[in-house]
């Protein structure tokens, strides 16, 4: 397939980067031709059809836009995969948005990342102030009525796409990735997971999420496997049907999906073909882990990846409580706070070197990306861990306030900023409360008048559903220390008292 022949000169210009995602995908689509590439329910795309779909969307974006980046809101469906790779191949640098974001959040992300256009599935809620410019199949391209804002940060020439991190600055930040980084991540995972053309990978993670991007998109296509999406809601009954219909060899999901499946009265509905079950390294209930092992004879493989650096380990389940050994091209150093390297068996800060690291943020509304790196160029994670004598990594905790709810990382600062805008709210503290089986996002609200209904209504309109606190504890005065900061013991005492809602 020589899809680049005759394309606009900018396409030819972009070829000077030696290894492109588009080239690799074209090669796979040519080589695996009639083999099935994607399936969702009764819909199936061959590799040839995937290649044609990528070209179609690429050409559409080249015709309808003049520059990137473009904020793209993909769904878990074959046409969105073609859209993502078409946008990457167009050189317009798609930024992959979370489909759960509200129109208010999308508009703000467009502003902060200086995206020149927004691509949505038809029928999606359109942010205020955006107008329709073009349509292609089920997608629409919109631009801000007031025109695009000038970029605060220039898009790097070698930026292939952007993914968002929940950040620690009160709003998602866009990370710029190169083709080489994405290909290194894909190859590292494909090699460790031994993906082959015989694999059928059922992925529940959304396309914008690193778990999906790094385990189930390029790795599967470069290996000639089949990527399957679950059609419909993630309910135990329909999930069971998908698992059986796909006869998955690899299952990629968040912890709650495993929780649901092990509770099925008829047992875990997986066939004998299943050889690998991957879960985000979020807290997974011990009973779920054990229930899965007993039902399938296999352990759940914890995925440990960091938004800024990509996938880090592969876990074959041989070392209990470990997230596995580093992927090819990944190395860890465990240090104390001062950066002094610690020997195997000692717990400290995890510093990571990978070939799949992002190279910059696409905004300047927080610390620069370089602030994440030490003097040797290693990414200084917020995770605390230990390497054992065999090189297996064991996670021990996390610095900072980031909250992991069902596999999604939530920045409490972002949620607090929204809750503080509710009339009648003096202040708020957001944290994760441990509940049996899962972490609950809780907001401790200082107010003498606000009600839970008012708080929920305000948050639902401005925050993605997963960022809306499930617990609102409303008190006239939040406990504070003598310096005016929230008092941790006082907040803990409120947590133990349980939910207190004003009428």
């Amino acid at each position, binding site marked *: 397939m020589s899809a680049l022949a005759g394309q606009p000169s900018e396409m030819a210009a972009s070829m000077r980067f030696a290894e492109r995602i588009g080239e690799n995908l074209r090669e796979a689509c040519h080589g695996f031709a009639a083999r099935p590439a994607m399936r969702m329910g009764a819909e199936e795309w061959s590799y040839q059809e995937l290649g044609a779909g990528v070209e179609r969307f690429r050409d559409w974006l080249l015709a309808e836009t003049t520059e990137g980046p473009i904020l793209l809101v993909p769904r878990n469906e074959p046409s969105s995969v073609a859209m993502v790779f078409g946008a990457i191949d167009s050189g317009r640098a798609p930024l992959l948005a979370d489909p759960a974001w509200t129109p208010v959040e999308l508009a703000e992300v467009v502003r902060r990342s200086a995206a020149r256009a927004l691509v949505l599935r038809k029928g999606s809620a359109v942010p205020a102030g955006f107008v329709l410019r073009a349509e292609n199949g089920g997608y629409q391209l919109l631009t801000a009525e007031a025109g695009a804002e000038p970029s605060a940060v220039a898009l790097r020439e070698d930026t292939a796409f952007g993914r968002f991190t929940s950040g620690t600055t009160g709003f998602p930040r866009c990370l710029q990735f190169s083709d080489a980084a994405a290909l290194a991540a894909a190859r590292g995972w494909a090699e460790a997971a031994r993906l082959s053309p015989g694999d059928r990978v059922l992925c529940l993670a959304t396309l914008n999420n690193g778990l999906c991007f790094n385990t189930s998109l390029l790795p599967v296509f470069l290996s000639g496997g089949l990527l399957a999406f679950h059609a*419909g809601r993630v309910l135990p009954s329909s999930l069971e049907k998908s698992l059986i219909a796909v006869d998955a060899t690899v299952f990629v999901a968040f912890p709650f999906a495993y929780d649901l499946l092990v509770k099925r009265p008829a047992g875990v509905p997986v066939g004998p073909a299943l050889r690998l079950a991957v879960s985000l390294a979020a807290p997974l209930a011990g009973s779920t882990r054990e229930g899965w092992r007993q039902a399938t004879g296999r352990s759940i493989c914890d995925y440990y990846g960091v938004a800024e650096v990509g996938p880090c380990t592969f876990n074959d389940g041989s070392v209990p409580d470990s997230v596995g050994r580093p992927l090819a091209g990944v190395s860890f150093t465990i240090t104390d706070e001062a950066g002094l390297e610690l020997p195997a068996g000692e717990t400290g800060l995890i510093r990571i070197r990978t070939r799949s690291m992002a190279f910059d943020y696409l905004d300047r509304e927080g610390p620069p990306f370089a602030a994440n790196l030490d003097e040797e160029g290693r990414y200084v994670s917020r995770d605390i861990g230990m390497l054992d004598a065999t090189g297996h990594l064991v996670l021990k905790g996390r610095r900072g306030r980031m909250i992991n*709810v069902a596999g999604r990382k939530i920045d409490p600062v972002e949620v607090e900023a929204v809750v503080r805008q509710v009339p009648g709210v003096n202040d708020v503290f957001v944290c994760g409360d441990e509940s049996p089986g899962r972490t609950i996002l809780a907001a401790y609200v200082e107010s003498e008048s606000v009600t*839970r209904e008012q708080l929920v209504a305000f948050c639902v309109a401005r925050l993605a559903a*997963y960022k809306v606190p499930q617990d609102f504890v409303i008190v006239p005065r939040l406990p504070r220390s003598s310096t005016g900061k929230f008092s941790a013991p006082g907040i803990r005492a409120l947590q133990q008292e349980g939910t207190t809602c004003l009428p």
Partner: protein
Amino acid sequence: MSAVAGRDVLLSRLVGVLERSSEGRVVLPEHGSGWPSLDALGLDSVGMLNFLVAVEDEFGIEWQDDVPPEVLSSLPAMASFIEAELSRGGTR
């Protein structure tokens, strides 16, 4: 029992299921001004999932992918749907 009374009983059971599945986090307001939509209750996706699974367990039904979205948008709509399903004697 009249159809209206039967639906009210279902609605009351649904409220109980919702409050139990959310472990008491969601307490419905007095509904003199009408039932809030489920979206307005602020359940996150896991909370919604827990609720739908609890409804399956409570009523012996099974949600299918073709359930109209409006059925899952409010408790009265869900109660009407469940009532129709139960009266048909089938599972969804």
